[in-house]
């Protein structure tokens, strides 16, 4: 038996460009480790962060990893843009076809699973318990397991850069291309197992936050008094619970095909690749709305806050969210109108897709009327919102166009489609998360982000986005299909690819401004301190506590009677009352989440490389860790009333200096 499975020295050999990426990863990793030793921060890292069960800390870790992966995803974009701008006619660009295909597959996978999902769960962790007036999530330890599974999946996908290779089969890895017959290497296995591990974390988070929202709301907060962001999260988490098991099952079947020679999706042996396409999109389409709905919720919060007016048409908004949630499960076939279904089937799914535009349109009108007769303050989050209104409506329009099957036949799998979904994911989802990030940043860290640099970042992102993606729409109409590593000069596409590359460069400047904004804001944090806990004149409960929020969130659990409880309390001059404090029970930190997920990571690596003894060992590790954790009865710690009193008095004193 070969103890190393199919792992050989050649797995460490790469072409020069990949090697550059590997070296960067190694240098970065060594830099972090070195810094931890130099500043003697290991103990601090372990105690304060790695073992944290506080959803606010877990949220910050999600945001940190997602930001890191955004940089990696953008590095992939730069390679894609340079390749497509230069690989024309006699020139074959900067990377080999195989590397190029790995790069765009990694780009899509990373941006959806590790950037968008990471930002989403980060913000949800930070804000949902605070908005519903809770001290914690329903299952704090499970939450830590979810996060570490996400981190494990993320580590595995990055490891594929260093050891072996990544999938070249596109971000959804359609069989039979992704089957053993056509992709015999480890790439597709890395893809499968990093998603399996991270996806399991997402499913557990979905359950956790659904229960949290349904069971842990403040007294008096009926469902129809929940902040709209919480509604959007509840809808998204319901989608997670229904959609992610489909992903898990589909990936499991593909893994069985590849590892044990089964025939679920192979073309031969009675398998059916069309079933895979069907299944992956019945997860994939809800996934789009899993990302989109919380962004809708964020925009709703921001518009109401900065227009200083109640959200217009709350019931319509809730109904629209619910309608989108249901509809998002009956449109998946629009991703493959071109697979040859009959006219009736295509027409049904086309019409259902169009119907989603109705509740979405209603939301836009409600946002506009929230601002109508308001007093709008244009802080950075509002810039992201306004940018979203314009880009998202364009993307919505091209989406409606593609919902007509006969139009889709002409633009499917072209750069028109690529431009459309980036329109939704960047202009819709990412702008929303950036808006939420700058809106809630003071609540995380106790100081505001620099407004001017934030606006610069916005302008670069917005202009860069249009310059990068309008050419892609045109290219699609010129017949340019996606994922081409090379094309003929006679196509006349090159100059548009170059323009798109310029757009990406402008976006990179935007990212540069974001990093600079973060650095400057930390540097000058004393000047931008949020002493009140309420920097934007907010409406919901998270603004009623100090910034950064204390570990227990609320010294006294709030009682709610209105939809915008904090706003109403301020109006009635009852926002900050004195109270009698009592002991607060909070979960103790635990490193077991990290350990369980660590074994999951080893399991993923071992199964990719067919190191069966290690697979067994890692599985055993997971099971033993779970048993050990389950047998631990000492999981709670008490924050004494006196300590609460002290912290609250300090917060009050800070507020009075403001």
């Amino acid at each position, binding site marked *: 038996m070969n103890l190393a499975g199919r792992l050989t020295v050649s797995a460490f050999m790469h072409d020069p460009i990949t090697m550059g990426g590997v070296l960067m990863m190694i240098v970065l990793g060594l830099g972090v480790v070195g810094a931890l030793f130099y500043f003697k921060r290991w103990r601090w890292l372990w105690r304060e962060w790695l073992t944290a069960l506080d959803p606010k800390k877990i949220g910050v870790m999600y945001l940190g990893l997602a930001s890191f992966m955004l940089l990696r995803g953008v590095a992939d974009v730069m390679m894609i843009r340079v390749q497509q701008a230069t690989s024309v006619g006699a020139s074959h660009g900067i990377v080999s076809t195989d590397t190029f295909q790995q790069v765009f597959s990694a780009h899509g996978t990373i941006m959806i699973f590790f950037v968008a999902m990471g930002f989403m769960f980060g913000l949800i962790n930070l804000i949902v318990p605070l908005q519903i007036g809770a001290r914690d999530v329903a299952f704090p330890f499970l939450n830590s397991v979810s996060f570490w599974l996400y981190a494990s999946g993320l580590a595995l996908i990055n490891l594929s850069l260093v050891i072996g290779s990544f999938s070249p089969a596109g971000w959804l890895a359609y069989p*039979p291309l992704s089957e053993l017959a056509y992709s015999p290497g480890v790439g597709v296995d890395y893809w499968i197992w990093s998603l399996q591990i991270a996806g399991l974390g997402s499913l557990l988070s979905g359950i956790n936050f659904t229960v949290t929202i349904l069971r842990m709301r403040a007294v008096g907060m009926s469902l129809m008094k929940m902040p709209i962001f919480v509604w959007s999260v509840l809808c998204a988490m319901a989608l997670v619970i229904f959609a992610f098991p489909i992903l898990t099952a589909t990936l499991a079947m593909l893994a069985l095909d590849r590892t044990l020679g089964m025939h679920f999706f192979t073309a031969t042996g009675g398998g059916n690749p069309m079933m895979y396409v069907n299944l992956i999109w019945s997860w994939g389409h809800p996934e789009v709305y899993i990302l989109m709905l919380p962004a809708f919720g964020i925009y709703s919060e921001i518009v109401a806050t900065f227009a200083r007016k109640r959200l217009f*048409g709350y019931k319509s908004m809730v109904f629209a969210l619910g309608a989108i949630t249901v509809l998002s499960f009956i449109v998946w076939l629009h991703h493959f109108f071109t697979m040859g279904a009959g006219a009736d089937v295509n027409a049904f799914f086309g019409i259902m897709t169009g119907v989603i535009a*109705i509740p979405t349109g209603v939301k836009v009108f409600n946002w506009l009327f929230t601002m109508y007769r308001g007093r709008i303050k*244009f802080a950075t989050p509002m810039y992201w919102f306004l940018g979203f209104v314009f880009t998202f409506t*364009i993307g919505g329009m091209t989406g409606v166009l593609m919902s007509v099957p006969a139009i889709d*036949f002409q633009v499917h799998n072209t750069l028109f489609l690529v431009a459309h979904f980036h329109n939704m994911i960047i202009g819709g989802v990412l702008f929303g998360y950036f808006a939420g990030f700058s809106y809630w940043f003071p609540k995380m860290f106790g100081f505001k982000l620099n407004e001017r640099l934030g606006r610069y970042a916005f302008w670069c992102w917005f202009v860069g986005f249009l310059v990068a993606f309008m050419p892609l729409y045109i290219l699609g109409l010129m017949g340019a299909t996606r*994922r081409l590593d090379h094309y003929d000069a006679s196509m006349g596409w090159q100059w548009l690819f170059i323009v798109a590359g310029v757009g990406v460069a402008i976006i990179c400047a935007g990212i540069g401004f974001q990093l600079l904004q973060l650095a400057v804001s930390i540097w000058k944090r004393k000047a931008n301190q949020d002493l009140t806990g309420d920097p934007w004149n907010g409406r919901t409960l998270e603004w009623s506590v100090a910034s950064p929020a204390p570990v227990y969130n609320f010294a006294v659990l709030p009682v709610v009677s209105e939809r915008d409880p904090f706003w109403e309390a301020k109006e009635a001059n009852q926002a900050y009352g004195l109270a009698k404090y009592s002991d607060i029970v909070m979960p103790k930190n635990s490193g077991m989440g990290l350990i369980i997920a660590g074994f999951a990571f080893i399991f993923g690596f071992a199964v990719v490389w067919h190191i069966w003894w290690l697979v067994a060992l890692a599985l055993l590790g997971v099971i033993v860790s779970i048993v050990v954790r389950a047998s631990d009865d000492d999981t709670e710690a008490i924050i004494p009333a006196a300590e609460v009193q002290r912290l609250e008095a300090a917060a009050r004193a800070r507020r009075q200096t403001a």
Partner: protein
Amino acid sequence: MKLRGPAAAIAVITVVILAAAVTVLHMGGAVILNPKGMVADQERTLLIVATGLSLLVIIPVFIMTLVITWRYRETNTKATYQPNWDRSRTAETIWWLIPTALILALSIITWQSSHSLDPAKALASSTPPITVQVIALDWKWLFIYPDQHVASVNMVQFPEGTPVHFVITSDAPMNSFWIPALGGQIYAMPGMSTQLNLMANTTGDFKGSSANISGVGFASMRFVARSSSQLAFEQWVAAAKASGNALTQASYDQLAKPSSNNAVKVYTLTDRSLYDRTVMKYMMPLPQSSELGSYGSTQ
């Protein structure tokens, strides 16, 4: 009314870049907007109608955004401020109805066009159609003419004004068969046979490609779709028959091995059930050879 503020700047940037994009499209390089076939022509009309319908809602939204954000900016203290006004049954009914009306109109268009432009539907024409069997291979296209008894690689020729009935499969990973000048695409899948009906309105050479990734050679899966006169088509068929290349199971198996950037090559077809056998070989149990015909053939 003068408008300033971030929304106005955002709108100006958006409109300028959109206008630039529309100008580029008018320069004429966009094959989908300059169709050369009956199906592509109808698909373009649909695209334009649906765009127009959407703009009916989008333009008012843009204008409302501009006006509202400017009028109700923080510094304009003259504007009405009603912080507690949060519902209006009339207003909300109106904007549930506006997108509903748009989608209703679009749904009718969707239903009708899905049927009239169903890729599997034969095109109405006084000229009888010709059948071309298409096999996507790693990484080239094989075209088989079961009734003309010829075949070709990376080039497909047919007479103008004649409906072409493509039946399409793959003996490789999934691909998508697409000639944008003539009409929309359809997947080519192993063990499956999809159909596409197209007709060229003029003569000319049109570019075809695979729109779905199928491995390292996928970018080279380009082919020429040549629409010619009936006479030129017949001459081409005759030349293929006289080429001396015979497409047999053995030469097919050779051709099916992975290769890319294959030159155009014509064959005389000796085995009319080649296409059917290629589709059926993925099925178990394999049907008897005598049960196989030639899918799509009119003879």
